[in-house]
């Protein structure tokens, strides 16, 4: 009998290997090979760029368009302002790398990527209307954004920290959406972040770096990886495996530049050492700029959450107004003498209590995220290109928020419902998007935050989920789903003491068998067999148990956790990476 196979660790990445790992190899490392630098060998000879064609020269190739003028030429191609005759709408026509027109490998990559790009549909991503090949040109026809890019906005005036921070959440939201669809931008920089006349931000040139990319030209030191060096993540520069975290790095550079007016230097200095900003922001910015991708935010959504939290922290009043607490005390002392006074005071207390209740519920209603979103909205509004009206004057009801962020709890509830439906179908990515929208429309909706947490947790993003659950609990301290979620996250990180109170609180709710299951695991792993037995019994009695539950109940009764069962119920050890030193709470 062999009941104690020790957990095997991958010698390369340190992950715990599943016992049934194929050929004894680490699945994670095997998977990573597919995006390795050896994947493709392509690329052609660089030809000298040709001068841009005039609208007149182009016109015969694009009969469906009226071509007005060349808007610019960049590394990514030439852009023209056009009008689609059939729909009578403006569109931007981008001709990609005319010098590569005869490169077969390029053609394949273009078609593949353009298909993926055309499938992206997000308010903060420039929409691709059409693509194809005409007159020897590979073209993309895109939404025309009437406004300026972030570079132009930055050179017009220096951003306040509040304005700079407001740029991040919508960009992260869009990046997360694209990343969920398997698309990485690879060239995030101020030139590619467009601001329209309503102050909305839109990401341009998604995935174009990949279409033009020659990252597969391994070993050619003299060739440039596609992208813009100052904004490129180290791994992207080194032509290592660059994934979605490269975008997070690039956005970190943009944020650093907006805050300090400078690019991060070779020796990275915290923004607060250059300009006067809240030091808590340093950590938020520097984490995005970590050299190692695994040290950065794991997802754009997480980056967004941290920026929003930091914004909320710094805009929250630091002291509770004295009036809220003092009157109680003074009145109480002054009136302890007589019954008559007491009655009077009781009346007064009622009045004060009511006033206090009203103000505190208002305070609740303005919880951290509302602060953050409002700040974001304000700052966004003030980012609008000068000379454009800030807001249509004919909408008198709207005072602080632009159209997109008008609170709409009903719509939010609908979105949440749709989110749960998708979640139940196992479509966690889209469920997450619905919940995310719901939280934007109704920032105080604990159910939406809870749903967002579960969608992200089931997608494998525990850090983001943790933030969302915490928010749900702040808004609604007895939210069983969020309590359970937070408990499960800590449990999976082997933080048993932290997990316990959340699971216990969740377990008190009706039918919370997941929390019971969690508590059983927790107590077994801690060797608290009596407690474990109680919860295991509840799981089994509820009829929700499976073979593992039965085994756990037996183990609790025998007061002995076999190695085999321990291996089954113990969460994998956290990856062994250099942790930054713990910070005081």
């Amino acid at each position, binding site marked *: 009998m062999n009941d104690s196979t020790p*957990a095997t660790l991958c010698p390369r990445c340190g992950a715990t290997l599943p016992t*049934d790992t194929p050929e004894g*190899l680490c699945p994670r490392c095997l998977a990573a090979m597919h995006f390795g630098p*050896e994947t493709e060998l392509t690329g052609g000879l660089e030809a000298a760029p040709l001068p841009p064609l005039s609208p007149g020269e182009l016109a015969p190739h694009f009969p469906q368009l009226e071509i007005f003028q060349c808007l610019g030429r960049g590394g990514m191609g030439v852009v023209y302002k056009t009008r689609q005759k059939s729909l009578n709408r403006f569109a931007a026509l981008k001709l990609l790398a005319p010098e590569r027109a005869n490169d077969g490998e390029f053609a394949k990559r273009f078609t593949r990527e353009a298909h*993926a790009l055309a499938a992206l549909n997000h308010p903060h991503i420039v929409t691709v209307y059409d693509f194809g090949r005409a007159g020897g040109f590979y073209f993309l026809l895109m939404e025309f954004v009437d406004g300026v890019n972030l570079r132009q906005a930055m050179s017009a005036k220096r951003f306040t920290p509040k304005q700079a921070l407001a740029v991040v959440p919508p960009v992260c939201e869009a990046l997360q959406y694209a990343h969920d669809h398997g698309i990485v931008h690879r060239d995030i920089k101020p030139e590619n972040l467009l601001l329209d006349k309503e102050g909305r931000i839109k990401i341009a040139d998604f995935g174009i770096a990949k279409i033009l990319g020659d990252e597969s030209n391994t070993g050619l030191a003299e060739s440039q990886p596609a992208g813009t060096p100052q904004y490129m993540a180290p791994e992207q520069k080194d032509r290592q495996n660059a994934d979605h975290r490269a975008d997070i790095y690039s956005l970190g550079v943009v944020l650093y530049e907006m805050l300090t007016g400078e690019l991060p230097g070779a020796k990275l200095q915290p923004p607060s050492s250059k300009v006067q900003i809240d030091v808590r922001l340093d950590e938020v910015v520097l984490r995005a700029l970590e050299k190692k991708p695994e040290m950065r935010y794991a997802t754009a959504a997480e980056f967004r959450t941290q920026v929003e939290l930091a914004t909320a922290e710094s805009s929250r009043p630091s002291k509770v107004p004295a009036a809220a607490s003092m009157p109680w005390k003074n009145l109480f002392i002054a009136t302890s003498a007589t019954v008559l006074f007491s009655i009077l005071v009781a009346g007064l207390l009622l009045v004060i209590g009511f006033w206090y209740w009203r103000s505190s519920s208002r305070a609740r209603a303005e919880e951290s995220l509302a602060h953050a979103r409002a700040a974001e909205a304000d700052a966004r509004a003030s980012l609008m290109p000068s000379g454009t009206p800030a807001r249509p004057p004919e909408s008198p009801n709207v005072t602080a928020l632009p159209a997109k962020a008008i609170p709409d709890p009903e719509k939010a509830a609908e979105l949440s419902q749709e989110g749960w439906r998708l979640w139940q179908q196992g479509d966690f990515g889209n469920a997450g998007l619905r919940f995310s929208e719901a939280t934007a429309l109704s920032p105080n909706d604990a159910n939406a935050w809870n749903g967002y947490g579960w969608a992200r947790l089931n997608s494998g993003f525990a850090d983001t989920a943790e933030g969302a659950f915490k928010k749900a609990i702040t808004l609604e301290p007895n939210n069983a789903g969020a309590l359970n979620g937070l408990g499960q996250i800590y449990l*999976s990180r082997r933080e048993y003491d932290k997990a316990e109170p959340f699971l216990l609180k969740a377990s008190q709710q009706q039918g919370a068998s997941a929390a019971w299951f969690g508590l059983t695991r927790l107590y077994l792993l801690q060797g608290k067999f009596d407690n474990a037995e109680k919860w295991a019994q509840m799981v089994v009695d509820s009829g929700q148990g*499976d*073979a593992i539950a039965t085994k756990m109940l037996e183990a609790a009764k025998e007061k002995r956790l076999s190695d085999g069962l321990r291996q089954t119920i113990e969460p*994998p050890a956290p990856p062994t990476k250099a942790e930054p030193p713990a910070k005081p709470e």
Partner: protein
Amino acid sequence: MTTSPEQHTPAVSPAARFATTRWSVVMAARQEDSTESMDALQTLCRAYWHPLYAFVRRLGNSAHDAQDLTQEFFARLLEKNWLEAADRERGRFRTFLIMALKRFVANEWDKRQSAKRGGGQSFVPLDTKFAEERYLADPSPALSPDHLYERRWALTLLARALARLREEYEADGRGADFACLKSYLTAERGTIPYGEIARELGTSEGASRVAVHRLRKRYREVFRETVSDTVSSADEIDTEMRYVVEVLGRV
């Protein structure tokens, strides 16, 4: 207690030996209702049913019920023209299978149960013992049923790709090479001891370098082929590859 499944189960279920069937073939032939496409579907189902089993178990079914349910599901899948639904799942076998199963659980399973497990028909012989061991061996009890399904799916793809690779090598009489070289599939470049490999294979260092490179290259190709067998059109391969790689990255 059970013994460790590692001790006595082969790395790949016998039923998972690779089939050359492709989901695209099944999809293309679905209108014609041919026995050929049914056979093809059956072969595919047999190769990829472990993830479904894990899903059903994680829903809270006992091993016995999960076996019944899965068997019944496949029997019904093959007798009924459920492929109509495949269009709606955008042509990926992975999503088609789980959606069909969920529909089956929601609409038919209870009814069939109360009508009593009928006839004992078992159209798809499944190696249920193997599946149960796999399920119990998976060290991830906190995963939701869906997440577990995705994870088992990705691991199945990986196991099939490696089994296919191994068979290729063995068919050429290079089984020993494969056994020696496979652990360098995941090795960091720069850490591969070519000298040692050369000694073991009785060849030159240069030749061992080429051998490692070829294995790595061929593995990539085979994995891609394995994934492409589960999608219905070529333009879905990349998306599915990315997805599977992402899931494996979290394993």
